């Protein structure tokens, strides 16, 4: 066929329809390219007989045309330069592509040249993960085509991956997201997600274009939609006995499962245990539980006069997944009782875990908020354990209380039922004791010493620690997710090493899985609270407002026995470090309130010995920030506010004796 084609070739002549004689001289390094390159070429194009039309460059992967460029050729004998993109697709092996250059004159006579191009994958030294917020993370090369970055990330990290230009023909390639795939040039951000915030690895393969993680939390394949960093929700129509397959929930084995709504099966699935209806299931990855409430339309259900709908509990002494998340009178945290029928509701509580054993003060409401509530006139208790306040019996109207002398059993399981069969003004409450909850301890070890726990959430141990020694956990892998009291612990984000900062001695170290924090208190060898010693060593305790830990949500207040123990970082030297933050909406680490402080330092965890007015000499520029009142209270200096977001350190130095103590406050 080629010979035939050659035989058809004819020399130029003067006829207007003469085919002409287009000639190309091509220069350029066309033998090699990387995927994603723009292959450059220069063509000297000429036809002495017929005006030229175009140069057509076509690139073939196998038999498939994958890229083409057309250059207009107006002048014979001129050089024309062009570039043709070598596309970068997933899963294409290195190989030999074909470049075809075709020069055509206006009489459609063509001449073409074919080039074999060895195409290989670029071997990037590193990539950059560029988030939607503009943050950049270097993705290190782990192996050929494999890149990753490990950091403490938010639960979802949306962004693009940028590969640098390689070589003289290289192009910067930005990998985005389209149709659930990572692709070069795609407009969408790659929605990396881990289910929960924390330290994790984002990886990408430049051969397969596969990335991770894409942890999607779902129930029966129905994806939960994020509410905020740690909570996601899905609405489902459920009936008793329906089986739910949970997928993508981090550390799901550690989750607390509300027994009124679900039974956890051996295979990890959940069987719905409440009455049929529409429910919102909110997964809380931080507190590791599902909050469930009934829906009416797309809103939280309310209680109807006839007893249908939903019954809610708001008040003190009850909380899910544990009392550390007590409802209190924060109506948004109201607990929705599990419907067991059209007009019957149930709440199972466990003494010391989800209900206080010695005092309760909560009541039934008709909505997740103020409004309809069951009063003492509406509600009759058939229980000898829990009574209903009438307003006249020493308890607020409708508020539930433990009957005189009643102390609930630690780990005792109690089922509170609310029967509204006769309507909400003829309600009956029963409380049944179901025995003791079997507790299966999941031990955690600190420096090979078993920590004690009663709920697999809050762990503590009295342990002797040396200053600057390393702390090691066993059976606990969440060290990258913890907040560390900065005066007690140093944490290396790269290695995960935990360094103990205060002076050597006995400490009660507390690991709170629920709030993801590690804290410590100085104690004696027998575990009792340390007090300030005559030589200035030991412990200083802080109480008051405008100071708290780990955030302003936990201000110390004036509750004796719940004072904060300052870390003795050198003999007789105590520190308290934190950022200045707002009273409401503060974050972990905001341990000073920026606009108000009123606190005092004590010799023990409670009232007794204290640093009265003038007993600590303020040093440096402290007086520009703080003032000491005559009663010993320490407050912000008149007219002073701390700089929000700035880190401050309060230091009490008793190294020269208690009577020569100094107080220093500095911005770091």
């Amino acid at each position, binding site marked *: 066929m080629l010979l035939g*084609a050659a035989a058809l070739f004819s020399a130029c002549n003067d006829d207007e329809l003469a085919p002409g004689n287009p000639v190309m001289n091509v220069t350029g390094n066309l033998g090699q390219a990387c995927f994603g390159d723009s292959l450059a070429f220069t063509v000297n194009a000429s036809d002495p007989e017929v005006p030229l039309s175009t140069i057509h460059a076509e690139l073939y992967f196998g*038999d498939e045309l994958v890229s083409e460029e057309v250059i207009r050729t107006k002048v014979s004998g001129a050089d024309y330069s062009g570039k043709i993109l070598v596309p970068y697709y997933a899963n294409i092996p290195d190989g030999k592509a074909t470049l075809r250059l075709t020069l055509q004159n206006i009489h459609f006579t063509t*001449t073409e040249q074919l080039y074999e191009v060895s195409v290989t994958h670029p071997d990037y030294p590193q990539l950059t993960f560029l988030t939607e917020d503009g943050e950049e993370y270097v993705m290190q090369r782990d192996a050929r085509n494999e890149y990753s970055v490990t950091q403490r990330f938010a639960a979802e990290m949306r962004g693009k991956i940028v590969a640098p230009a390689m070589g003289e023909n290289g192009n910067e390639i930005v990998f985005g997201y389209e149709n659930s795939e990572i692709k070069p040039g795609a407009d969408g951000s790659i929605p990396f997600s881990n289910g929960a915030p924390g330290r994790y690895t984002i990886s990408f393969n430049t051969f397969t274009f596969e990335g991770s993680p894409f942890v999607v939390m779902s129930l029966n394949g129905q994806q939960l939609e994020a509410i905020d960093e740690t909570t996601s929700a899905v609405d489902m129509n459920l009936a008793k006995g329906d089986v739910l397959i949970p997928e993508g929930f981090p550390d799901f084995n550690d989750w607390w499962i509300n027994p009124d709504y679900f039974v956890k099966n051996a295979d990890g699935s959940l069987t719905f245990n409440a009455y049929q209806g529409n429910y919102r299931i909110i997964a809380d990855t931080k507190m590791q539980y599902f909050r469930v409430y009934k829906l009416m339309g797309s809103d939280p259900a309310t209680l109807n006069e006839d007893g249908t709908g939903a019954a809610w509990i708001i008040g003190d002494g009850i909380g899910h997944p544990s009392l550390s998340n007590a409802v209190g009178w924060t109506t948004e945290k109201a607990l929705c009782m599990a419907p067991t029928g059209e007009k019957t509701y149930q709440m199972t509580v466990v003494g010391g875990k989800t209900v206080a054993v010695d005092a309760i003060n909560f009541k039934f409401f008709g909505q997740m908020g103020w409004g309809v509530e069951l009063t003492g006139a509406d509600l009759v208790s058939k229980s000898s354990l829990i009574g209903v306040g009438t307003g006249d019996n020493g308890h607020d109207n409708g508020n539930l209380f433990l009957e005189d002398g009643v102390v609930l059993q630690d780990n005792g399981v109690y089922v509170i039922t609310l029967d509204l069969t006769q309507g909400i003004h003829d309600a009956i409450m029963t409380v049944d004791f179901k025995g003791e909850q079997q507790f299966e301890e999941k031990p955690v070890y600190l420096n090979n010493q078993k920590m004690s726990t009663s709920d697999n959430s809050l762990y503590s141990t009295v342990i002797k620690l040396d200053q600057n020694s390393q702390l090691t956990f066993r059976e606990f892998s969440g060290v990258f997710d913890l907040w560390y009291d900065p005066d007690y612990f140093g944490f290396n984000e790269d290695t995960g090493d935990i360094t103990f900062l205060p002076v050597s001695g006995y400490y009660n170290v507390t690991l709170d899985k629920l709030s993801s924090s590690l804290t410590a208190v100085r104690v004696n060898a027998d575990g009792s609270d340390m007090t300030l010693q005559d030589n200035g060593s030991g412990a200083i305790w802080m109480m008051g407002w405008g100071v708290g830990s780990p955030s302003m949500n936990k201000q110390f207040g004036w509750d004796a026995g719940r004072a904060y123990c300052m870390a003795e970082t050198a003999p007789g030297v105590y520190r308290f470090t934190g950022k200045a933050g707002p009273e409401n909406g503060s974050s972990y680490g905001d341990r000073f309130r920026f606009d108000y402080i009123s606190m005092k330092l004590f010799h023990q965890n409670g009232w007794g010995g204290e640093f009265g007015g003038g007993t600590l000499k303020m040093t440096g520029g402290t007086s520009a920030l703080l003032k000491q009142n005559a009663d010993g209270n320490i407050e912000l200096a008149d007219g002073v506010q701390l700089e929000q977001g700035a880190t401050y350190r309060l230091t009490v130095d008793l190294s020269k004796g208690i009577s020569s103590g100094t107080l220093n406050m500095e911005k770091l």
Partner: protein
Amino acid sequence: MNSRHVIIATLLAAGIMTVSCGDEKTTPGEQNPPAVEEPATGDVRVLTTTANRSKDLTESWIDFSSTDNMSPSTIHMVPSEEFQTMDGFGAAITGSTCYNLMRMKPEDRKEFLETTFSPSDGYGFSYVRISIGCSDFSLSEFTCCDKEGLENFALSSEDKDYVIPVLKEILAINPSLKIMGTPWTAPRWMKVNNLSELKPYESWTSGQLNPKYYADYGEYFVKWIQAMKDNGITIYSVTPQNEPLNRGNSASMYMGWEEERDFVKNGLGPALKRAGLDTKVYAFDHNYNYDNMADQKSYPTKIYQDAEAREYLDGAAYHNYGGDKDELTVVHNATPGMDLVFTETSIGTWNDGHNLDSRLTDDMEQVALGTVNRWCKGVIVWNLMLGEDSNGRYGPYRPGGCSTCYGAVDINRNYTTLTRNSHYYIIAHMSSVVQPDAVRIGTKGFTAKGLTYTAFRNPDNSYALVLSNSSAEEIKATVDDGSHHFPVSVPARSAVSLAWK
């Protein structure tokens, strides 16, 4: 293949692209470039049918490519991933089908049957379904034992005069043909009005099998299988009851899952075992949606829960007149050790059955590929051939049966002109490249809107790939089996079958 591909493929084949500096070729301008001839042979056999019949099971060939496969549109065969082993593909050889075939000139019939059933010179249809007694496409209502007492068992005249002669003719063309038998009704003397009153029930339609005849009815199956064997016809499989939840039709019998369980356990299974028959038994044989009867949902899997009944069963059979094919996956996942086979679907006036443009790719997606991709070992459509009558309907059909059905092939009133409908094409596209005992294998890679495909490894180690394109655009892809690769074009609204070694 567009002109660019033709040119490049030709140049590549000519072996001129061997150096990195450009080889040059000059071509004078032409108004009408010469037509490119399709090669008459090659490495890959291709059958193509377009919905407009511009390609009508048209054969063509493709050569393996000699270039590096860097195509981003590559369908990779994954032979290491194995699914079910295939039994075959075909249509029902009903009494009506055989009646029509027997009305054709013998030479015309021979040519049609050879084209349809020959594995070497035709499309290799490999699995057919026949009725035990009558179906709703018979010439009358009957069973093989209409007079009470199994001593009265005898094949019917429809069997002897139509079905058996046709089957013998087909078996002469394709001796390895698999045949499934299915009753539409038990003999009426075995039927009762319901299981509580147990009153005699003389109707061809509805009624239930009297439990006291479970053993006799099992023997009835055995006698029928043996009678067919005596006529040189081996029955490969049976189902206990056609459409057991359908009380209508021209002949039917209701058989809920508990009855079928008990009949299989106490009648059919033991009878086959005693007779030394290894005939496969498939439960259910009805719709994906169990005719919306809540208590019949998951019909076969409920039967499988009875270990004794399960021992006699090979799997379950499904029709697609209600529900969705995804039920096949549900049943497979629930009982992965049990087989699935798709045994009936029809075209007719209700689904614009004569309009290939509306049917071809839909039937490829829903039936041919859709059921095989959901674990079916076999696909059998309804009547192979129906004949047009003076009312423009197709039959012969029975009163109360389907008067609006079309065959996979329809024949005109003079029995001279055949029209191949979608069900013929979809079966031909499977059976022509997928041999019996082929294994469905995995694929990965290229996907496109409207493109559906399934891959197989045949017993002779050749590969088969069947594709359907329901989009309005031609789809080009490269097929790569790890050793070879080649380009393939799937025209708009078409089915394409590929086979290569």
